[in-house]
């Protein structure tokens, strides 16, 4: 395929990227809003455009189990899910990370039941925050496409071997038609080496995987795992840098917009970044010294990058897309507070939870959140969180 720019549905672009990555096994179960990704993949396989096994499993629990098996034999493995699907597979999701089985998942973020809702927020991904996967958040179709390749490159790196989820907002991204640049196959080949699984299951080199751990050894296995996730950071940065050198599109663990001279910033994850930038442009014209901080890499959490962006600001207004019930507020704000605690020049944090289950957060809402948040910060009203737009 030659380098082309297409107007295309983001899910289709993502599936096309998976095909260009020469994936060997796809195992998935239909769930909204992820379905278009795997539908298109099954078509690509059925038409012979990708030589792969498409395993149409009977549940998400099996989808992740199949992915564990195929990754364990060294096959390049992809899956996609959302919400209840992620919740159902969460047992094996954790095991995949613990067994260090590389794979890429397109996680089309959607709210968790109940009430049943098919629309977007981040309650699904936050429920598996501590499972040991690498988590990247994307803002638009191009980022979805690009991060499939970066995802495989990072996850399969022998120094990493940790599964990676590309988090894309359900509907807001999955069902959007956007211009996306497709790179030519040569560029992809140059960027993404074949997967060589260390200690893959094969009769020529038998190993035992998934052994039982007594209290005498379990702690050591968990430290080994923690180091694997932490050590992925330099590989991630390098993988994004090399992708940028090839394509001109660079990614960073934490990205900022008009933040250098800002007194305060709005912090977002995922597709809200684009709206936030537009609103900041308007507010700048009105004389507000506001900027945007976008958390792209959620695990491993980029403490240093975040502190570089945040220290010295007066306040941060953090938009969360999920509630930690009975806890300290939104999971992102809570994480950022702990990253800044006790640091000199740390900004105060005002936490808004907005856009649950796809409730629209318009430019005007962003404007309200930013200005109201700034006022709250000035008053020292920074405890807990505000559920934006709540009636009653």
């Amino acid at each position: 395929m030659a380098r082309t720019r297409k107007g295309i549905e983001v899910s289709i672009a993502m599936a096309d990227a998976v095909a260009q990555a020469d994936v060997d096994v796809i195992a998935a179960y239909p769930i909204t809003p992820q379905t278009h990704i795997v539908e298109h993949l099954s078509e690509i396989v059925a038409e012979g455009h990708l030589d792969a096994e498409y395993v149409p499993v009977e549940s998400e629990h099996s989808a992740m189990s199949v992915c564990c098996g195929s990754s364990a034999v060294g096959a390049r493995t992809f899956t996609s899910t959302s919400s209840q699907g992620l919740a159902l597979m969460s047992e094996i999701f954790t095991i995949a990370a613990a067994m260090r089985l590389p794979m890429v998942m397109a996680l089309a973020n959607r709210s968790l039941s109940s009430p049943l809702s098919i629309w977007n927020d981040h309650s699904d991904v936050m429920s598996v925050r501590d499972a040991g996967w690498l988590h990247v958040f994307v803002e638009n179709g191009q980022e979805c496409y690009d991060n499939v390749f970066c995802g495989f490159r990072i996850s399969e790196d022998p120094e990493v071997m940790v599964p990676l989820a590309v988090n894309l907002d359900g509907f807001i991204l999955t069902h959007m038609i956007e211009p996306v640049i497709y790179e030519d196959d040569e560029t992809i080949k140059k960027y993404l080496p074949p997967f060589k699984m260390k200690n893959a299951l094969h009769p020529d080199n038998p190993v035992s995987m998934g052994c039982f751990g007594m209290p005498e050894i379990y702690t050591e296995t968990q430290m080994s795992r923690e180091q694997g996730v932490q050590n992925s950071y330099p590989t991630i940065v390098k993988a994004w840098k090399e992708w940028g050198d090839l394509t001109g599109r660079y990614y960073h663990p934490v990205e900022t917009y008009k933040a250098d001279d800002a007194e305060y910033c709005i912090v977002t994850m995922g597709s809200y970044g684009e709206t936030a930038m537009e609103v900041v442009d308007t507010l700048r014209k009105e004389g507000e010294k506001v900027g945007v901080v976008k958390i792209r890499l959620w695990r491993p959490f980029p403490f240093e990058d975040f502190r570089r962006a945040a220290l010295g600001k007066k306040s941060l207004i953090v938009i969360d897309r999920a509630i930690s019930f009975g806890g300290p507020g939104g999971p992102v704000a809570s994480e950022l507070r702990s990253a800044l605690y006790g640091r000199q020049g740390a900004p105060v944090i005002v936490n808004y939870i907005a856009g649950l289950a796809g409730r629209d957060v318009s430019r005007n809402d962003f404007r309200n959140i930013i200005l109201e948040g700034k006022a709250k910060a000035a008053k020292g009203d920074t405890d807990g969180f505000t559920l934006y737009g709540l009636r009653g």
Partner: protein
Amino acid sequence: MDKFSVYSARLVDKTENFTSGHRACQGCAEALAVRHVMKALGRDTIVAMSTGCMEIISSPLPLTSWKVPWIHNAFENSSAVISGVEAGMKAMMRKGKLPQKKINFVAMGGDGSTADIGMGQLSGALERGHDFVYVCYDNEAYMNTGIQRSSSTPYGASTTTSPAGKLSIGQHTQKKNMAQIAVAHNIPYVATACSSYPFDLMDKVKRAAETPGAAYIHVLSVCPTGWRIPTEDAIKYGRLAVDSCVFPLYEVINGEYKLSYKPYKKLPLTEYLKGQGRFRHLTETDIRHIQEQVDRDYAKILKLCGEGK
């Protein structure tokens, strides 16, 4: 060679693919079944195993009893994991990423992981028709966690969660028939076997491995600890289960039933029940009732196999 005598034991391959040093209880006929199955399969095999007795006893880090590539992932998903193993190998061999090689893909689990928690996943894998063998080692309860009832526990057995008591006969439901459920998936090969008949078991495992597509083998695995019998009687009770027709040995090849072994003289059920602690509370009336059930079930199997009385 007569499969049901054992006097040709010396002809069996001496290679052990499941080594000593495993931590199964004394007299564990399930560990013995694994040993036989692994002899039949040989080294060109990848095993995915469910959580359970055999997984725990064979793989305490940093040790392993396995000499073939082996993966354990969770309790309910060995059939899905092996689906991924098979799909991955198939794709990579087809694409030239790996050299072509005939490999046996085998999933294994106990009756809890097979008939209860992993039933949906097994059904999915059988329906999709992956080229694999599923071996269920049925010791008729959750032995690993301390003898709790499963849907494979026979009627009348006392377990720690179906205890016999003033108001309870013990397990009050009928044993789920997994072999028949496997047959209902229209897969090319289904069989029942028992490690008290090692030649029959090993033959069936080889046939299952040679069959393209999905195959299912249900192995009755006597558990001295859970059945409350002396350890040296593990083999004897497997024979009694077969000779009393409680556990008939048969194959279903492409839907055609074939009886593997017909006892010369069908033993009364009491021969099998007596001496088993899990049945010791049963009254004569209870036993008569169970005998009738055994007779009915066996008659059904004989009919399916086209055998006269």
